[in-house]
């Protein structure tokens, strides 16, 4: 690993910087609501600004080339683009800086479209003043920017998959297909997870067991995938792209330890099925079963013939939906997503075994979304009866004096009449709960949400990444979902692993915390506030001071306000930059009511 170049001190005189400012029209998305020429003129005399200009589309290829030419010709050492959200083009313009030989961290993007022109379409004067402030503030940040370099290191072309359920196994094959060696660590003696236990599963009737067997057949043929069962991840050191992990293999003769270098880690540790409390909807009574127990019953029944429970024929079934899901405040508030479809699908399977079995579905709402709606229709067509109960009036289950079970429900669909259904079997349509995995969570520092499932960085835009670089989450460990959705996440984690590792090297953002050794008094207070353990004490000039490891620091800045002597700065957001940026934001004149003429824009 190459050492990070120390950040240079900010230039002696920030006002001598040579900054180029580009204000984008974005077609008319910005210039229809903001006087971009006025913004340009306001910036011309700003200290350190050498170029101030407007562009029709700053992101167009032609403009990017012009920027590169200007940076080279005028010797620019800072760049500000006032355009859309940095989420869209920060990388684009950092690359422009890079291609022109400028430090990419001397680039600052002012978000003047989403956060100005689009939000103030009826206040041109106000929006223009606001944009002047935003651009001056961005110039202030660039003026005080340090020369920063990403930390670059070689990446190991191997990924670790934790969990050998359908998500983990399919991800392992995907990793190998893309040219990364895959190692699967499965805690149980058998791979397959929940799907490996099931026969016919939705959609269609493909058997879960067969699907797992077919994945394993593919894996056995490949030398680039290794699967360890009865195994656990027990240690992790290093940083993304280059982790060293310890694996413990639980073997008859005692535990064996393995050490392995891996570039990324895909966590696919799945879920647990909700376990009802004793007495919850009659659970514990003879004849009340959970959804997984019922699936096992179906799987062991003959293809056509009789469905039986404990040696007794089953002639009627009542399904009670939403058990363990949508419980309201304090409980499992989420919908488990797969269970409506699984219960409906199970009723179709029961129908095939013996069409004369009467089936009652007691539900709050049916969430057989997308194509699963067809299964719902098919089940009603095949004779299943659906009864809807109110959220605050769940059904009750009791033993009937003559034997069998009685389910009492107030059916909202038949004038809220109370109905007592005598049935042989009650199926509690149990949802998913997060699996207990404390040692793994502690080891990998996995972010756990309030619902107990693991949290991705962003549900839409970064759906399998965690804040721990190189550690991805996939499948039902993230949230309740179907097998297909789990596998999709697994393959997203494959693509993300490839994006991180396939270049052969990786770079870490240098926007990390930095301790001023002259100011640090070595109190050690900051050590305990970093959950990533990035801060340690070091010997410096004959005394103990704190020091940040840039390869593990996440750049949150959480330690910055907690230092009693102001010795910590977050690079890119230093104290000097923040103060100056705040001053520049306010320096534009506030438009008075008289000036801020509302101009209707068609």
């Amino acid at each position: 690993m190459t050492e990070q170049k120390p950040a240079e001190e900010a230039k002696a005189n920030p006002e001598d910087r040579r900054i180029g400012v580009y204000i984008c029209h974005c077609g008319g998305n910005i210039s229809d609501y903001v006087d971009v020429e006025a913004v340009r003129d306001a910036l011309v005399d700003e200290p350190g600004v050498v170029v101030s200009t407007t562009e029709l589309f700053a992101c167009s290829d032609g403009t990017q080339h012009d920027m590169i030419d200007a940076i080279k010709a005028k010797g620019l050492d800072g760049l500000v683009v006032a355009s859309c959200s940095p989420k869209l083009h920060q990388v684009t313009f950092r690359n422009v800086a890079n291609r022109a030989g400028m430090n990419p961290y001397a680039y600052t993007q002012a978000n003047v479209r989403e956060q100005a022109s689009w939000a103030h379409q009826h206040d041109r004067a106000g929006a223009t003043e606001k944009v002047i402030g935003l651009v001056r503030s961005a110039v202030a940040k660039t003026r005080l920017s340090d020369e920063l370099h990403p930390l670059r290191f070689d990446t190991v072309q191997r990924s670790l998959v934790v969990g050998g359920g359908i998500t983990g196994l399919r991800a392992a094959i995907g990793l190998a297909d893309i040219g990364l060696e895959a190692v699967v660590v499965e805690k149980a003696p058998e791979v397959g997870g929940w799907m490996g236990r099931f026969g016919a599963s939705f959609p269609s009737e493909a058997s879960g067991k067969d699907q797992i067997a077919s994945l394993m057949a593919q894996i056995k043929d490949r030398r680039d995938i290794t699967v360890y069962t009865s195994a656990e991840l027990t240690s992790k050191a290093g940083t993304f792209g280059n982790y060293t992990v310890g694996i413990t293999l639980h073997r008859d003769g005692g535990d064996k330890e393995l050490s392995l270098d891996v570039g990324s880690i895909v966590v696919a540790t799945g879920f647990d099925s909700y376990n009802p409390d004793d007495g919850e909807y009659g659970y514990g009574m003879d004849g009340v079963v959970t959804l997984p127990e019922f699936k096992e019953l179906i799987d062991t029944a003959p293809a056509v013939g009789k469905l039986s429970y404990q040696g007794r024929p089953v002639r009627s079934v009542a399904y009670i939906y939403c058990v363990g899901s949508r419980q309201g405040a304090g409980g499992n508030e989420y919908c488990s997503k797969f269970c409506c479809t699984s219960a409906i699908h199970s009723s179709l399977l029961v129908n095939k075994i013996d069409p004369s079995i009467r089936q009652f579905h007691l539900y709050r709402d049916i969430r057989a979304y997308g194509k699963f709606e067809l299964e719902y229709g098919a089940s009603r067509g095949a004779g299943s009866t659906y009864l809807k109960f109110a959220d605050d009036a769940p059904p009750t289950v009791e033993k009937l004096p003559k034997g069998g079970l009685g389910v009492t429900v107030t059916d909202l669909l038949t004038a809220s009449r109370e109905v007592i259904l005598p049935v042989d079997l009650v199926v509690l349509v149990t949802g998913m709960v997060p699996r207990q995995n404390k040692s793994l969570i502690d080891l990998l520092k996995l972010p756990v949400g309030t619902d107990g499932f693991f949290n991705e960085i962003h549900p839409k835009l970064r759906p399998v990444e965690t804040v721990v670089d190189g550690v991805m989450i996939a499948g039902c460990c993230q949230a309740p979902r179907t097998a297909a959705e789990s596998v999709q996440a697994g393959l997203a984690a494959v693509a993300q692993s490839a994006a991180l590792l396939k270049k052969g090297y990786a770079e870490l953002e240098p926007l990390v915390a930095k301790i001023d050794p002259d100011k640090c008094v070595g109190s050690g207070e900051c050590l305990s506030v970093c959950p990533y353990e990035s801060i340690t004490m070091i010997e410096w000039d004959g005394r103990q001071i704190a020091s940040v490891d840039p390869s593990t620091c996440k750049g949150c800045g959480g330690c910055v306000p907690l230092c009693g002597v102001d010795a910590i700065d977050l690079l890119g957001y230093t104290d000097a930059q923040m103060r100056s940026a705040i001053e520049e934001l306010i320096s534009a004149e506030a438009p008075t009511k008289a000036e801020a003429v509302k101009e209707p824009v068609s």
Partner: protein
Amino acid sequence: MSGSPQPGSAPRILVFSTINISDPGIDLAGSRHLEYPATVQTMPVPCSSGLKPSWLIHALEKGFDGVFVASDGEECSYLPDCAERTSHIIAKTQELMAAKGIPAQRLKMAAVCSVCAEPFAKYMIEFSEALKRLDADASVAS
């Protein structure tokens, strides 16, 4: 410290947003053309737990009439105790504000999620109105 804006002008508000969570929410407010006063300025930081009370005070002293911290709340992907840490920063800032005679109402915090477009626009309109009332009360009192 400004405290008393120019007569007739809208209160100037500085919002500290967070790059991964609240800033996308504020972007979404713009994308959906939800209007709020143009005197609201935004400054993104990685995480609201990294804000220094001295920056918030600096903003108020340099002329902002109000500071709004759009925090990550429970959604923060960096720090599990982010909400608690941010509340602590707010409390500390309020202590400093009290010592300087700046009314506590000039500082507000609320969690703004990545799709909280409407709540954000609403917070801004309400905060702006509250600051106007504060200034009106102050000018009556003086």
